[in-house]
């Protein structure tokens, strides 16, 4: 087990190096010099040089003891990303904002998973029935509406027209009141793809022999569904949920932007509009590392759920 983890951690090294390389290529090589934008139109040469040296853009790209690439690697390995464009420390910014994102995304994930798993289980049990057809049609229809339209219509009708929820974030409000609508919209928009995924998982389980045996034994449908099928379908369910955990930290770009919730998604959109490459670089890198780590955790979870899986052999 520990040997397996050690091996997997070792295999993570090239991936993380690749992420550093890609972020470097994107933001330093293709993105290029942002000094003009930072300094403004009427800056003199001295200001520009100062900004350039602050960002480290005056150094050679590669092939030097103090090259931009080596500095980039150093920053990434030590998780010390320096300061954002507004001179605030990036790590501080992260810690200040990530709470709001998690408050938004954790209920969203739980709600979506709960509703879609139960609906998918029912739909797969009564496959080709009325409920199944309705659910499938709803899924495809919901997947065809752009996310932005969900948000705009939800905000316009539910909050602005009918006044059921506050339209925008306000620090004095109770968090539940301003988070309720974004969470609701996020759950509704996320149902489509999730139900479809779980439904196909359950459909595959229902074709297997053990289900027929269980029914033949005379077990009640509830027992077959919840103890037999659900348990056997745990591996894909856990994969999907564990894989979505790193994205929870990122928040939701659009929802946070529209409802003014100061989470990481809001931060990212601000960084995009102000061309804050330092901050974007840090966000991309940290989330990529999180994803790599959670992939490993997902593999560990298989062991707990499914005793048939043996890591030593499967690798």
């Amino acid at each position, binding site marked *: 087990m520990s040997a397996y983890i050690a091996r997997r951690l070792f295999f993570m090294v*090239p*991936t993380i190096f*690749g*992420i550093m*390389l*890609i*972020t470097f290529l*994107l*933001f330093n090589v*293709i*993105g*290029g010099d942002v000094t003009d934008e930072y300094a403004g139109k009427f800056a003199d040469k001295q200001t520009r040089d100062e900004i350039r040296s602050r960002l480290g853009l005056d150094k050679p790209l590669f092939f030097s003891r103090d090259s931009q690439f080596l500095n980039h690697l150093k920053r990434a390995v030590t998780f010390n990303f320096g300061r954002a464009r507004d001179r605030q420390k990036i790590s501080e910014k992260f810690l200040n904002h990530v709470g709001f994102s998690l408050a938004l995304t954790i209920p969203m994930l739980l709600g979506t998973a709960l509703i879609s798993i139960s609906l998918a289980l029912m739909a797969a049990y009564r496959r080709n029935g009325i409920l199944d057809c309705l659910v499938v049609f709803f899924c*495809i*229809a919901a*997947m*065809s*509406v*752009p*996310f*932005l*339209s969900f948000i*705009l219509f939800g905000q*316009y009708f539910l909050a*602005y027209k009918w006044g059921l929820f506050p339209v925008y974030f306000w620090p004095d409000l109770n968090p539940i009141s301003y988070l309720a609508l974004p969470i609701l919209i996020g759950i509704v928009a996320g149902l489509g793809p999730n139900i479809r995924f779980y439904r196909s998982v359950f459909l595959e389980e229902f074709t297997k022999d053990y289900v027929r045996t269980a029914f033949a034994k005379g077990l009640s449908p509830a027992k077959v569904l919840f103890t037999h099928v659900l348990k056997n379908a745990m591996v894909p369910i856990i994969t999907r949920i564990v894989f979505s955990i*790193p*994205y929870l930290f*990122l928040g939701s*770009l*659009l929802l946070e*932007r529209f409802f003014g919730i100061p989470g990481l998604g809001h931060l*990212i*959109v601000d960084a*995009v*509009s102000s*061309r804050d490459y330092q901050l*974007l670089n840090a*966000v*991309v890198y940290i*989330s*990529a590392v999180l*994803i*790599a780590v959670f*992939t490993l955790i997902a593999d560990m979870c298989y062991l707990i759920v499914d005793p048939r899986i043996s890591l030593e052999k499967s690798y």
Partner: protein
Amino acid sequence: MKKVTDNNFINGQQPQLLLKRPLTILCLAIISSYFLLAAFVYVAELTRWNPRFTQWDKKVGAEYESPNGKNILGTDYLGRSVLRKTIYGAKVSLTVALFASFIGIIIAVPLGALAGFYHGIVDDIVVWLCTTLTSIPYILLILAFALVLKDKSLDLTWLGLGQIPLAGIPAVCIALGFTGWVGICRLVRAEVIKQKQLDYARTARSFGCSNFRILFRHILPNLYHILIVSFSIRFVYYIHAEVILSFLGLGVKNAPSWGTMIDLARQDLTKGCWWEMTSATVALFVISLAINIFGDTLRDTLNPKFIRLQRIKYKVTYER
């Protein structure tokens, strides 16, 4: 018992199965009418023939006119016809999605095929690239690409083409295409690994075909169903991604696309103008729905797993 061979299903049965469903035909009709519309706008632009409904930038009425007899879908904040903008938006959005899908496939298929066919260092590099790209959140990757390409230009003076500005449609296509190829690449790689051990590939080798010929003349044509299905899935995804990019200000400039129309609703909705974003949403919804249903039918009929199930079913009925 009637002999049911692979051939029956791959060449004979499936297209019929596909066209026997009225819903599928309806979806196909919707998709092709959208594409015809987009092609029509292209032709009208290229031939400098300006029919009235491609003149999206012309003022046709007062600002924020609600839908009425003259302007069926109302007007926007500059008094331009929303109907014309929606039609023109079809051209922009479909172009972006189509080119992004093509870029993705052009990158993914050769890489995946080579990685699957040759073991060793090629495979390692491609797999490493895929793992690296998948461990960056997709939306962030698109954002980063679109952001750094925003006002760059491609220097092709050495080809005699001069500087090609990447702003607008090309930047969006490249950002979407360069980030969206990983899934297809993995599918192709896995399938090539499977196919190259099948009898026909071995036979081709025993006939003395070169690796290149086996790969590109024998194996790749057998992967068309994967490509078609993933093409349809990606296509819808790209149309939707364009909306998000437009919202973030990284989308298409100087021309109406469905994304920019929906994005405009941020100001419009407070003034009670719901028709512009509604028409763009409906236009987007209809084609996404059609492609989604069509793609599902395609996947069901082309999926080898499904074919196997069908075969078992057929066998049973014949034996009875």
